[in-house]
């Protein structure tokens, strides 16, 4: 995996297309201690069923992945060896050889799941978050491969067919709590303020300051994930829930420069239409009256 330092891009780094008044998360992974309080708080508040109990066998991460019933997921990345396969012999002063990140729905400024949804179940709320209306979703599943981050999923009940409701689910940014003026459950529960909630514009300023501080302390890899340079690229125009990372995004299982899938709709349609014209001409030439 590339361990290249993510470089700043003038005019793009630290900028986002978030609409004024948009609410979001800043997840500062340098503050995460891997306590999973966010996972638990999310499950409790949103009354999400437990996942199958088991061990992955590869790290302290036994949650594994975001799913229809897991809307916060703490990733545990052990820097076991460097790019040449050598074991590390020293440790960074500010952090152990573990990287921890609480992953969540990014609430994209332009969201692939929302554009894909054929029923209009996925909407943008007054807080500029992306929410699935459960009374509308019919479980077609098209939003699932349309998310460039692997967030949204159908609740299929882990193979126990009658348990899941077979509809699409993901983080709502605690829409019900926001309506009552409360912060989302995960941010409330986070003991180190690794998860911060607020106006995206304020959070972005805070993130830029934090990255500058980290770099001054010698963490030159520190960067924002979710601005127009990294994470919010390719027509997504920024993530309302964004992150501070200290390694390339791939290390955290995040795509460095994803693209809004629906950007392909028009060129793909044009090429299909051109092919249709060519085939129609071929058919006319083959079948016309001689």
């Amino acid at each position, binding site marked *: 995996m590339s361990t290249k330092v993510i470089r700043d891009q003038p005019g793009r780094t630290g900028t986002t297309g978030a609409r004024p008044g948009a609410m979001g998360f800043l997840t500062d992974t340098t503050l995460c201690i891997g306590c999973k309080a966010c996972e638990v708080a999310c499950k409790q508040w949103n009354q999400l069923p437990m996942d199958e109990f088991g061990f992955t066998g590869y790290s302290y991460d036994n949650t594994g992945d975001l799913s229809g019933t897991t809307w916060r997921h703490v990733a545990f990345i052990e820097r076991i060896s460097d790019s040449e396969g050598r074991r590390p012999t020293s440790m960074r002063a500010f952090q152990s050889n573990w990287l921890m990140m609480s992953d969540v729905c990014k609430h994209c400024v332009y969201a692939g799941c929302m554009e894909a949804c*054929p029923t209009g179940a996925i909407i943008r709320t007054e807080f500029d978050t992306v929410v699935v209306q459960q009374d509308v979703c019919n479980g077609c599943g098209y939003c699932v491969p349309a998310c460039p981050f692997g967030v949204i999923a*159908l609740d299929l009940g882990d193979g126990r067919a009658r348990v899941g409701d077979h509809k699409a689910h993901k983080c709502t940014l605690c829409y019900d709590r926001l309506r009552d003026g409360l912060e989302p459950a995960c941010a409330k529960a986070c003991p180190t303020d690794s998860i911060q909630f607020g106006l995206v514009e304020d959070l972005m300023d805070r993130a830029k300051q934090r990255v500058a501080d980290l770099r001054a302390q010698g963490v030159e890899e520190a960067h924002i994930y979710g601005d127009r340079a990294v994470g919010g690229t390719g027509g997504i125009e920024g993530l309302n829930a964004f992150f501070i990372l200290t390694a390339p995004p791939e290390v955290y299982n995040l795509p460095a420069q994803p693209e809004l899938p629906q950007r392909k709709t028009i060129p793909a349609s044009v090429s299909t239409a051109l092919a249709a014209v060519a085939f129609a001409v071929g058919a006319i030439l083959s079948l016309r009256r001689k």
Partner: protein
Amino acid sequence: MAYERRWETRRRGGRSAGDEARESYYGVPVIHRAPWRWEIPTYFFLGGIAGASYVIAGIAHVFGGDEERPVVRAGRYLSLAALIPSPILLILDLGRPERFHHMLRVFKVRSPMSVGTWGLVVFGAFSTLSALIQAAEDGLFGRGTLVARLLLRLPSRAIAFLGQFPAFFVSGYTGVLLAATAVPLWTRNYLLMGPLFLASALSNALAAITLILTVAGRTSHRSLRRLERFETVVMGVEALLLAALRLNSGKTIARPMHEGRLGRIYRVGVLGTGLGLPLLVQAPGAWLGRRLPRGVTVLAALLTLIGGALFRYLIVTAGHRSADDPQATFELTRARENGSRRS
């Protein structure tokens, strides 16, 4: 579901956690694969035949002579017959089938599935109407009855011509639908998916019509040869598009199409049985005028149809596999220095 997949990826490689951690996050997929089951590739196959046989029937009707009447007849009936199971399959695949009508509460230009739903509704009207007209022409509604007279008075050529637009749409939009996702294999080949699905739909419809006409045995040899000529051209184009897909995907993203069971299905089923053999058998007959025994024509048509069904299964399943492969996603989304993306 997430759990099952993790163990699967751990077991498949048989490598240490250290290896996996270096290349990705312990092999956990970056994106989620589509939750579709067998219904979707089956619909792609049948919907493609429904659309493309309407295309063949319509073009034979508008531009062909009286000799093509059997082609028009077979195409019109086949179109409706292949179309009828399509919405049933699509509804069955929904997580909540009883809510299928929620698709009809909005029209979203940016969502290929929304546009596709409406396209299918419009095409359904054309396909049904043309099949009814054919039935009236065949006297299935009796002679001189009100229904028969009403249907026979309709401008069937104009209907066939207008119906070409939704028919081509239904044959090809499914490729666009797959292209507009984050799945590496589908979105990397976004310009090829629609044309490839169109070509597959046309070759399958031509094979099915040839099959029906040969078995029924009431078609002129010349008319059959015209169909076969066009079919060989379409299959040639399909083979070229598949080669382009391979080149354009690159090694990592194309991996599921070439390894293991799927790789064998691709080589033996799609390329060998579905394209190679029928081309080999049909091309001399179609272009050099050599008359083939009926059994051979029937066999070639059957092989084409099997290959077509396997192709739909392959492209969907290989897409799932590429979605499960973190390296394929990273190949697509790797950071580039100047922030510009290769698409």
